[in-house]
């Protein structure tokens, strides 16, 4: 039976090579030209426990994970017990012959006879390759690349294990869940949200990144560190998150477009720094990859519960922008947009993602990097003819920019008239501490005027589907794919459905939203938190009360099934 879409779940203990199996299989599928959506779910431990790597693969463009699986690869018995209830009809279970006695729908692989337990994951990869009807050469090529740095012996041993698994199953099974061949798609890139953010930041011209390791944000910094020499970036692991954001501000002040990457708890430590970036009018991009809180919460799972925190973090009143990408492509483009916004308006700008998107590999088209210019930190600058004032009061609230010791950077010669002074105290236009209370008022208004400029550059909500719909699903950030797929299914059931996805959470364009939301009979918000933070934000800003809230806060991503379950009557 050939299928156009197959949902695969690989489960095992940490340390069993689950991610290697998952990543190599995903890469092979992407190279073969399929569309993929990966969901990684893991426990906060290095060995043992129960982790899963789910790959949904299709000949069509897909955007969301699903809950029922067609192929289950169980590397230990717990996977089998926990996920038995998630098998679709006609599913295939690939399992160690010693772990199960069933025959129907089970492929019991004698891993111990086929080789060392160390290579069990790659042997299983061989079996899955055959079961999917995937070209073994593509998989072998991926393995060669994957183990390239570990030398020829490792490559040979892994290719041997792949071959053993593949040959064992070949001819033994007839009715396999074979995938249809992809329709001449140009193979894309396999990339997850964090990788796309790193690439987007590099494309924008990031020059400095400070971080303190925290799941699920760390891999952004790791990625930048791996490319630091080639791209002229400095990546520094700070002693704590407080240092990280203060470093980013220091580097940015001295002319290096800068970012920090963290999650909720680490961001909590950065909040005074957010306020500092705003007051000193120093650009900084802050990536908050959300995970469930409060406190340590579920360190390796996903949630969208830090929206209100990020919207309000930092004492005092100041403008900020908050972007929330809905896909891996949006991670790239909004990372660029975040740098553009931060550099143009000189202040803190947020990129709000979550563990699901951070770790979710997708097939994406190549970005046209040559057509995307890096940010220009001096865009708003003018040639100074007299003493430079870092906080010159302007109509837009944006003051000309200059870097200390680099006066010629923005077109002016070195001179002691071109000194750059920044102050966390209320300050004069020249950046010196002041207690002049009328100047204080002027400066508050100057800073807040920048928000008006930001409003002219809002990323508009993505609206799709039927006009004047029966149901409008509104969501933000990583839930986009699931909402779009759920909407398509509801439409197939005869309902008229529209979707609204917000990828910019602040500033909002309230008038536009009210008009759209008022056109629907029923508006339902879809969010990965327990209190409906986006719905509350919309009510606060527009007065529009969203009646129905579809929420998930068990640590797992919102799936189309979770949304469809709320519309069972249709």
């Amino acid at each position: 039976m050939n299928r156009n879409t197959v949902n695969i779940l690989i489960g095992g203990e940490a340390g069993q090579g689950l991610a290697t199996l998952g990543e190599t299989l995903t890469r092979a599928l992407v190279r073969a030209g399929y569309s993929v959506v990966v969901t990684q779910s893991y426990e906060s431990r290095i060995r043992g426990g129960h982790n899963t790597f789910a790959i949904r693969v299709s000949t069509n463009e897909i955007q969301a994970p699903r809950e029922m699986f067609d192929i289950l690869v169980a590397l230990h018995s717990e996977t089998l017990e926990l996920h038995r209830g998630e098998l679709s009809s006609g599913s295939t279970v690939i399992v160690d012959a010693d772990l199960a006695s069933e025959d129907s729908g089970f492929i019991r692989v004698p891993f111990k006879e086929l080789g060392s337990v160390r290579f069990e994951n790659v042997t299983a990869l061989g079996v899955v390759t055959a079961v999917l009807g995937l070209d073994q050469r593509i998989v072998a090529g991926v393995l060669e690349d994957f183990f390239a740095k570990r030398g020829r012996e490792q490559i040979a041993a892994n290719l041997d294990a792949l071959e053993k698994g593949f040959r064992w199953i070949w001819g033994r099974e007839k009715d396999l869940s074979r995938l249809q061949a992809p329709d001449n798609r140009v193979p894309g890139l396999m990339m997850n949200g964090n990788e796309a953010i790193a690439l987007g930041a590099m494309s924008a011209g990031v020059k400095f990144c400070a971080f303190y390791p925290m799941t699920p944000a760390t891999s952004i910094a790791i990625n930048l560190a791996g490319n630091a020499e080639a791209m002229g970036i400095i990546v520094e692991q700070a002693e704590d998150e407080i240092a990280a954001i203060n470093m980013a501000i220091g580097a940015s002040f001295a002319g290096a477009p800068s970012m920090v990457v963290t999650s909720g708890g680490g961001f909590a430590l950065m909040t005074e720094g957010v306020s500092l970036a705003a007051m000193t009018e120093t650009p900084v991009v802050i990536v908050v990859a959300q995970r469930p809180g409060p406190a340590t919460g579920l360190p390796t799972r996903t949630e969208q519960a830090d929206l209100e925190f990020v919207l309000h973090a930092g004492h005092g009143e100041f403008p900020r922008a908050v972007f929330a990408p809905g896909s891996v492509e949006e991670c790239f483009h909004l990372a660029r947009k975040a740098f553009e916004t931060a550099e143009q308006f000189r202040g803190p700008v947020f990129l709000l993602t979550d563990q699901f998107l951070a770790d979710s590999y997708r097939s994406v088209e190549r970005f046209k990097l040559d057509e995307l210019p890096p940010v220009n930190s001096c865009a708003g600058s003018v040639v100074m003819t007299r003493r430079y004032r870092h906080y010159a009061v302007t109509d837009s609230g944006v003051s000309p920019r200059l870097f200390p010791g680099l006066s010629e950077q923005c077109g002016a010669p070195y001179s002691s008239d071109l000194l750059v002074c920044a102050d966390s105290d209320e300050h004069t236009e020249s950046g010196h501490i002041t207690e002049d209370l009328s100047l204080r008022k002027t400066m508050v208004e100057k800073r807040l005027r920048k928000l008006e400029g930001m409003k002219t550059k809002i990323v508009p909500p993505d609206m799709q589907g039927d006009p004047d719909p029966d149901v409008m699903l509104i969501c933000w950030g990583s839930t986009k794919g699931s909402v779009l797929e759920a909407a398509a299914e509801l439409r197939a059931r005869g309902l008229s459905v529209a979707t609204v996805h917000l990828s910019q959470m602040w500033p909002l364009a309230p008038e536009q939203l009210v008009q759209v939301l008022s056109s629907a009979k029923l508006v339902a918000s879809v969010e990965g938190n327990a209190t409906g933070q986006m719905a509350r934000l919309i009510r606060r800003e527009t007065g529009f009360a969203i009646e129905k809230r579809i929420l998930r806060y068990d640590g797992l991503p919102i799936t189309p099934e979770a949304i469809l379950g709320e519309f069972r009557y249709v």
Partner: protein
Amino acid sequence: MVTIEDYGNFKTAWCPGCGNHSILEAVKQALVGLQLHPFEVLLVSGIGQAAKAPHYLTANAFNGLHGRALPVATAAKLANKDLTVIVESGEGCVYGEGGNHFLAAIRRNPDLTVIVHNNQVYGLTKGQASPTSAQGFVTKAQPRGVFTMPFNPVSVAVAMHAGFVARGFSGEPEHLAGLIQAAIQHKGLSLIDVLQPCVSFNKVNTFAWYKKRCYEIPDHHNPTDREAALKLADEWGERIPIGVIYRGTRPSFEENFPVLDRGPLARRQVDLDELNTIMEHYG
């Protein structure tokens, strides 16, 4: 030719008789001595009375948050290593609120000159104990006296192999200016713990108290001798040594980054060929 006038003369918010005045003059003298132009210098401070110093001198300045001057300065120096970066703040800021950054900065060894105004009391918040207040020191916040052992920054810095460790006294401004000059010339982190009276809130460690105790470290002390340095660093009480206590030979933090050989990060363009190669790794 850079003169003292180039560094300006400003009205300050400090009390008359405060040690900050002479420390500020010593900083200016050192900069003039090295013929550094104001636009080549970046002063970074945190919060406190001492942290107002960058406002009273003509140079680039970043007056940040309480305790956080060191991370700002470390990264600004990385972004543009042509800048002469000087951190100036009080002991509450650098050793208290910013304690973790102090340890991390010594470990990293960035090419910064860290001048810590140490008057053993909190001035800006009006007279609470500081990290260096003596045990038994009575304040309104510590009415039964300070229970906590004072922090000895100099001992800690020597123990951690800091690049350049010195102690100065605001009552010896010429000597202090010399220390600051040597510190700026040292490649790597230089710490100068500067003892100073607080005329408003410290009635114990007064100008006379310091004057009586501070003595210049004799020429025969070898600052590269760590054991001798540790001994000097521990000397406190009836006699307090001032001068260069320790000199190490660790490379400065910036030397770890070949990226910096190509000048300030602000000038570095995005290499699109490299970026396209990086993107292809995802194929």
